[in-house]
């Protein structure tokens, strides 16, 4: 069974979703355990495969769907569809599937409350979204990536539209932007395909850097794929859809989409950048590189400044995502070792941070029913654990050591210093400080405004945490922020450094 692990990662949630949609007509209560089972299989396989990679000599594990060709033949891997796990996507797979599983556990109660009577297909769609995201991460075929992209996208439109009210328009806008991104990606694939005739990522990575360095069509394809990925990840100036889509979505959808969807698009961008093309290729067009870096600086600043003007915790979190996207794109496009390390590390770190943030918001919504900052006074006294988790998460977002946010920032700044991109350094620092201001605000409202129990006629302040099925995943993810930080060196030397291509020295 061990050789089938790569496909199990995708099949788990996919089949789980199909079964769940079947059972939902007979035993609606059964859908949830079925989905959990599927996600658990996927998460387990992903973790196993990460360990397999770490403890074996292999650099990459291939899986040949349909069993086409033997490794000796030329057509091996090209004729059929190949999925592969290497150091770059192993981590992403483990992160995505684990967060997917935890979020699923987390969402039960909130779905029960928010979507009473309408949750028939919720968990099917949830699971399909996870399988789409996992597929994007695992596939070794650029067209297959497009199909997975659409699976993830279609299910996320529905998940957002569960929010009712304004979420329909938000979802529609997301659909337009998402489809545009996917179409541009597909067109870019077409431009690459025209010159290479192959769709396999490994094969492309042999062809393009060697023979097609100066092909205009391949270059146009590169730009189109990048724009497509940016539209999907809400990179400035294509970020307009994100805040509404994620903040009007139901809590459970937000908690799944926000941490994973954008990060996986970043992964897709990284994969195309460093595997299909090469860092050489990126460095070859310095004008585009400097433009992208400038855009990521703007993205960071825009996200940060908008976040400080918001009064709703969920909107704040959404604008944080936009600024974090700027970190990752900028780090990747610095195109030097520390920058790329920072970008890849931040994909994992930010997935955990955003997940923790949205889960905490979910807990707060479950108990208090609102996310307006002003109304969270005395939160510490009502939900101490949740509040502490919120502080830790904010600290990670600011970049306080020893949380993971600090180390990604460390690498990113190091990369920017090496590349001499000072505006990026300054943007990173400013965004940290702005997040710090928001942290103070949260502390002042939630901790220093001691609620007066006498006013409500109670003797003491009633402590009421969210139910355990929500609290435990939240705490696990929050703790992981510190753990990821502490094991930075292990992660970087064992995985991220090996995932990097050879970087030409300047």
């Amino acid at each position, binding site marked *: 069974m061990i050789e089938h692990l790569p496909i199990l990662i995708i099949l788990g949630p996919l089949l789980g979703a199909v079964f769940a949609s079947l059972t939902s007509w007979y035993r609606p209560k059964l859908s949830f355990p079925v989905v959990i089972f599927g996600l658990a299989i996927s998460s387990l396989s992903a973790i196993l495969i990460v360990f397999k990679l770490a403890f074996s000599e292999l650099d990459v594990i291939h899986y040949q769907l349909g069993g086409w060709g033997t490794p000796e033949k030329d057509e091996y891997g090209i004729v059929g569809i190949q999925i592969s796990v290497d150091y770059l996507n192993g981590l992403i797979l483990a992160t995505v599937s684990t967060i997917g599983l935890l979020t699923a556990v987390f969402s039960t109660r909130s779905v029960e409350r928010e979507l009473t009577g309408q949750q028939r297909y919720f968990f099917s769609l949830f699971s399909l979204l996870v399988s789409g995201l996992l597929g994007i991460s695992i596939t070794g075929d650029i067209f297959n990536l497009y199909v997975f992209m659409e699976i993830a996208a279609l299910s996320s439109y529905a998940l957002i539209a569960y929010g009712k009210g304004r979420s329909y328009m938000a979802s529609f806008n997301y659909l337009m932007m998402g489809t545009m991104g996917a179409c541009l990606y597909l067109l870019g694939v077409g431009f690459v395909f025209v010159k290479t005739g192959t769709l396999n990522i490994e094969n492309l990575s042999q062809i393009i850097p060697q023979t097609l360095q100066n092909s205009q069509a391949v270059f146009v394809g590169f730009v189109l794929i990048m724009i497509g990925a940016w539209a999907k990840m809400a990179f400035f100036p294509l970020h307009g859809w994100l805040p509404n889509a994620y903040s009007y979505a139901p809590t459970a959808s937000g908690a799944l989409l926000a941490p994973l969807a954008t990060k996986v698009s970043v992964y897709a961008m990284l994969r195309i950048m460093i595997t299909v093309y090469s860092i050489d290729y990126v460095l070859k067009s310095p004008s585009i590189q400097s433009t992208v870096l400038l855009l990521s600086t703007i993205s960071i600043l825009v996200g940060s400044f908008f976040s400080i003007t918001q009064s709703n915790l969920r909107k704040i979190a959404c604008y944080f995502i936009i600024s974090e996207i700027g970190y990752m794109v900028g780090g990747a496009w610095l195109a030097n070792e520390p920058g790329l390390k920072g970008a890849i590390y931040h994909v994992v770190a930010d997935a955990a941070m955003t997940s923790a943030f949205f889960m905490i918001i979910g807990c707060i919504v479950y108990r208090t029913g609102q996310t307006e900052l002003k109304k969270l006074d005395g939160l510490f006294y009502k939900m101490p654990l949740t509040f502490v988790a919120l502080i830790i998460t904010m*600290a990670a977002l600011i970049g306080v*050591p*020893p949380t993971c946010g600090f*180390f990604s920032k*460390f690498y990113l700044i190091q990369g920017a210093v090496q590349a001499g991109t000072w505006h990026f350094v300054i943007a990173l620092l400013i965004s940290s400080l702005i997040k710090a*201001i928001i942290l103070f605000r949260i502390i002042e409202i939630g901790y220093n405004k001691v609620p007066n129990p006498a006013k409500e006629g109670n003797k003491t302040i009633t402590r009421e945490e969210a139910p355990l099925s929500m609290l435990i995943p939240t705490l696990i993810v929050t703790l992981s922020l510190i753990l990821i930080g502490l094991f930075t*060196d292990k992660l970087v030397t064992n995985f991220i450094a090996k995932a990097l291509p050879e970087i030409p020295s300047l």
Partner: protein
Amino acid sequence: MEETLTTPFWIVFISSMAAVLIALCGRAPNLREAIIFLAAICKLALLSTLTSGVLDGKLYTFTLINLLPNVGLSFKVDGAGLLFAFVSVTLWIPVTIYSIGLLRPKKDLSQTRFYACFSIAISSAVGVAFSANLLTMFIFYEILSLSTYPLVTHNQDDEAIKGGRKYLTYLLTTSVGLALPAMIIVYQHTGSLDFTGGGVFNDKTSNTLLTILVVMFLFGFAKAGLMPFHAWLPGAMVAPAPVSSLLHAVAVVKVGVFSIIRITTGIFGVDLLANTPSLTTIICVIAAITLITASLIALTQDNLKARLAYSTIGQLSYIILGVGLASASGIAGAMLHIPMHAVGKITLFLCAGAIYEACGAKYISQMNGIGRKIPFTFTAFFLGSLCVIGLPPTGGFISKWHLLNGTLDSIQQWTFAIFLISSFLNAAYFIPIVFKGFFSAPSDEKVYNKASEPSMLMVAPMLITATGCLLVFFFSNFLYQFVEQFLNVYAKTN
């Protein structure tokens, strides 16, 4: 002579563990406080096991986990670190006793939080003392900032929140905005963040870069209170007296200056500094300006705690000035000034709190004559101020002696005058308080009538620390041994 030993880690970790236990024992105050004393005693015991080794010239190292390539969460115990750790842990005990005396009668609900955060703060102060590299130090530095925030805002009224906001804004802004990028630039240039004797830079590093880095580090570790990033210190005086004493005398500010000593000796290297006059000039000028300005401002303050706060800012600059001299005795003086000033200033702050408790007087103008009513408190205050001014037979004399010696060894000889002027200023803002307290006619009848010695739990710690001011004078040679060990590693060639 390096030896791997887990003891440093346990020393740092014990009080964090204690914090957890304290948080759990919130309902049983006696147990809670027993845990604190137990932790402090354990810590002291473990520290003393290291003493003889360190004095023999050994360096104890321990790496918990590697965080970045070449850089781990690692500890290294040398003379300076051990000295600083001793100071902070020893002073933790009287402060705790004092806190019990101050807070228990008030039935303050948030005492548990107070003690827990206090323990974490001590933990991180010792962590800074034992850090083997810049990253570890930065981590503990930030934990200290965050863990002291609940202490500053202990009262949770508007004033406290305002002070707390100022406190965190200054500390986080500078550390994230200046120290962090400076650290990354160092890592980027040298690939190492370890504190080593000769510094990490090689000859190729340009002077401009070094100058920029020095400035970034000096202001980045704003806990050292260099102007213009000093405003958090007076702002944070809204905290209760034990917190102020911790903040302003032991943990926080000393961590700031200690960090700067570490960076200048371990990252830049004494040789490099001594050979680059422009760097020392910058350090000395910044410190000198802060020193004189702070002393002058202190003269104008009527609020006792504010005067003490500005005095602290001035005294911290002594230490930085000593480092800026880049001479062995200058650094020795700077190092010694940490315990000397700590013990003096803690006495003063405890006294200020005691005076307020005793008669509700915040302002110096109200305190005429009350010395006669509360003689113990005022005697302690007198000894504390002698120590801070630097007069024998108190410890401050010793460190100032070394500092003045250092100016003569250094090329920055003009600082000799600065030291002298500021000592006069110190005397000018402390002696009148004591004098008027004992000999003047009462200025505020209400205060005067109300005044009576506070509870024993508050008086005893003050007297202990006041005695400490004298003891450090007589046993200064013992303290100097630690410093000598430190100098052997970091400033050998001088």
